[in-house]
């Protein structure tokens, strides 16, 4: 039985991205085909400059690809151009970001840093606060909930950032070296946490990492080399299923591409 379409939370078809033109042209991504299903935890590996961050930014709708098609959570969002005017809204509702450095707002305390994302999604300040405290509790940092980011330890700040990434129940969690600033014990704890939360929310995780000690926490490891997916090193345990017909380019789309 083919999995239902909404099960493929991320689907990229022949996505390409380059920076600069002429002599200075850098092909950061070429011909990327990738699918990630809900609940899946994927590690993205590759040497420096291979395009890992660029790929995450494309999936996060922060960087516009040059060509190809991209579906997020069953919705075609890019087909040679953005199909949605309101990308920030899309990010707010569907995507959570976790970075190497926590990126918390320095003027908000831990609770407010999480609550602000909930409020932006249209919930009342009270509801946002409750949700924030609940998440911080879940991530075991609620004892530090009134502290400003500058007073949090690296691990605490990272957990607050994860709480913020999860605040609106995203379907896709993008993490760029989320554990690089942590020691290996904490890194393992944070990864376990991410996994557990993703499973609870039925979200997928795509995480860039260099940290071999946490490889065992991933369902699949994909390698990028010079902007291309290295399918030979694909750690997927099952062969890639064929695209469901729904996602196959229609003749019209193909003509346009």
């Amino acid at each position, binding site marked *: 039985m083919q999995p239902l379409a909404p099960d493929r939370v991320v689907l990229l078809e022949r996505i390409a991205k380059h920076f600069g033109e002429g002599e200075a042209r850098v092909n950061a991504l070429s011909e990327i085909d990738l699918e990630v299903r809900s609940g899946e935890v994927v590690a993205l590996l590759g040497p420096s400059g291979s395009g890992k*961050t660029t790929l995450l*930014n494309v999936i996060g709708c*922060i*960087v516009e690809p040059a060509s190809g098609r991209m579906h997020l959570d069953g919705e075609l969002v890019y087909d040679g151009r953005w199909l949605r005017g309101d990308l*920030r*809204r*899309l*990010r*707010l*509702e569907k995507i959570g*970001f976790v*970075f*190497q*450095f926590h*990126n*918390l*707002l*320095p*003027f*908000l305390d831990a609770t*407010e840093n999480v*609550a*602000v*994302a909930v*409020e*932006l*999604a249209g919930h009342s*300040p009270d509801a*946002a606060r409750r949700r924030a405290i609940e998440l911080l509790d879940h991530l075991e940092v609620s004892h530090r909930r009134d502290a*400003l980011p500058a007073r949090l330890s690296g691990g605490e700040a990272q957990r607050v950032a994860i709480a*913020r990434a999860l605040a609106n129940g995203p379907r896709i969690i993008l993490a*760029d070296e989320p554990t690089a600033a942590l020691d290996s014990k904490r890194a393992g704890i944070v990864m376990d946490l991410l996994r557990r939360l993703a499973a609870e929310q039925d979200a997928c995780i795509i995480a860039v990492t260099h940290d071999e000690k946490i490889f065992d926490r991933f369902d699949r490891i994909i390698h990028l080399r010079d902007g291309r997916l290295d399918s030979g090193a694909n750690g997927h345990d099952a062969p890639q299923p064929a695209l469901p017909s729904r996602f196959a380019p229609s003749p019209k789309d193909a003509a346009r591409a």
Partner: protein
Amino acid sequence: MNLAFRDVRHNLFRFVLTCLGLGLLLAVVLSMVGIYNGLVVDALTITRAPRVDVWLVEPGTKGPFAEASRIPAELREAVARLHGVAAAGGVTYQTAEAEFVGGSLRVYVVGFEPGRPGAPEDLVAGRPIVASHYELVADRRTGLALGDRLRLGRNRFEVVGLVENHVNSGGDPAVYLTLRDAQTLQFDLAPPAARVQRARGALPQSQDTLNAVVARLHPDASPEDVARSAHGWKHLSTLTQAEQETLLTKSVVDRARRQIGLFMAILLVVSAVVIALILYTMTMEKLRSIATLKLIGAPDRTIIGLIVQQALTLGGVGFGLGVLLVSVVKDHFPRRVVLETENALVLALIVAGVCILSSGLGVRAALAVDPSTALGG
């Protein structure tokens, strides 16, 4: 949650300091406006003090403030008899250095005839002059108190009454003497000089000279008719009260007024630039936070709100501090500082406008920032 407020709270000390600086700047702007107004008001007080309708002065002059004017005292009688004139009085004006407890005091001496127009009427303390000699009524700003004795020329005068806000266009406080005493002060030669004149056989000059005759008219009389008959019969030049006031504001204080006006305009521009710079740097420092907000999905209106609210808070608090400061120090200025609610309102509007315009600069930078800026380490 209000992000603008949280950010201000996070940097409270610096924000308060910035507001204080802006407050000081706006206080300077406001005092400049006050000094400007004060200059105009001061220029008029001395002409308004006698509460008259027309000024009769030396033919061909526009005295007694804009130009020197001398007329014989007996013309006062003639003016009083003109058709339409209710009352007339002779007045003299001069500046003098008075001596008071060892120091010297610059005063504007006004001579008047007690009981006639030209007398100071709005006493705030003491009594009017009753003796014909050696009493004076002084403006509060001289620093004199009732009972003080002041040396003017060769005589000593006792302060019997006080008035407020009687100054000339240069800001010198007025003292009122009887016409006789003022004439002595203005026209008497010192004894050695008088002896020399007598020795040369010169006729003693008449002391009985005025600088102007001031007149109140009957309610139905027209100043133009009075002016015509005064000119026809006695060859006097006449200025109506309105003409006198226009003359003073237009020609006497005009340059000083323009000077201050220009300075005020420069100060306003400087404040605008300072406000714009402050707001721009405030936004620039937050650019990373703004990128993060965009990254997690904040719409533009949240970001614009953050910047504009902070700009208006800064402007509002700075303006409030400025007004507070000015109202505390304004009475300690050596010259009058006159502030009308209207002036403060106009400045408030200008500050609000500048804040909004300059936050536009910050908003532009903030809207241009790429959310991926938040990703760098």
